[in-house]
């Protein structure tokens, strides 16, 4: 495992699309980044009214949303406080209309980014990138 390999995989998790960008797949990296980040923030800000990502209220969904990397942790830090102190016990009646869809969008984008990271972990992706002369430095997993 070379440092570049680890760094690419970790950056690919933290910011969707960056891993493919580093490997030289610029168009795919941009498309993946725009799609996954757009899906996540659409779910968080537009559909769920900034209530989709919260570790304290629904930790299991946060586990799925963490696949988005920095975006999930930023959203949790900025907006993840429960709206009311006893939100875990009392049913709230003024929830956003599409809260469930917002949580779905954030969770699905997290899972899809995990799929992208799995492809970055695959040595065949690195061989293909090296064969096409794409990767800067070109040092893959081994």
């Amino acid at each position, binding site marked *: 495992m070379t440092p570049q390999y680890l760094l690419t995989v970790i950056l690919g998790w933290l910011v969707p699309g960056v891993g493919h960008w580093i490997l030289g797949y610029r168009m*795919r990296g941009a*498309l993946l980044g725009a799609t*996954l980040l757009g899906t996540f923030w659409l779910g968080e800000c537009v559909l769920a009214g900034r209530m989709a990502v919260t570790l304290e209220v629904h930790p299991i969904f946060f586990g799925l949303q963490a696949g988005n990397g920095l975006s999930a942790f930023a959203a949790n830090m900025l907006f993840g406080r429960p709206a009311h102190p006893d939100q875990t016990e009392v049913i709230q009646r003024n929830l956003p209309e599409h809260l469930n869809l917002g949580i779905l969008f954030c969770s*699905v*984008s997290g899972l899809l980014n995990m799929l992208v990271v799995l492809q970055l972990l695959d040595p065949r992706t690195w061989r293909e990138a090296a064969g096409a002369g794409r990767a800067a430095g070109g040092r893959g997993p081994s």
Partner: protein
Amino acid sequence: MRLAEHIAFFLLISFITALVCAANRLPTLRQILRDALHFFFTITVFVFAFCVVVYVLEWIFIRPLL
């Protein structure tokens, strides 16, 4: 209207899933879009056909009992 909104958002997330899966494998934008649209429409048509079958079965077997 709410059902239509939900259906629209589910279709959107289905297309996004197909797009990301295709972008993960294929090299060019044209191939990615073609594969994603093909997969998306195949699934949508399949699910719609399944819904029609369930609807017809409901009309045949469930409605007479009500």
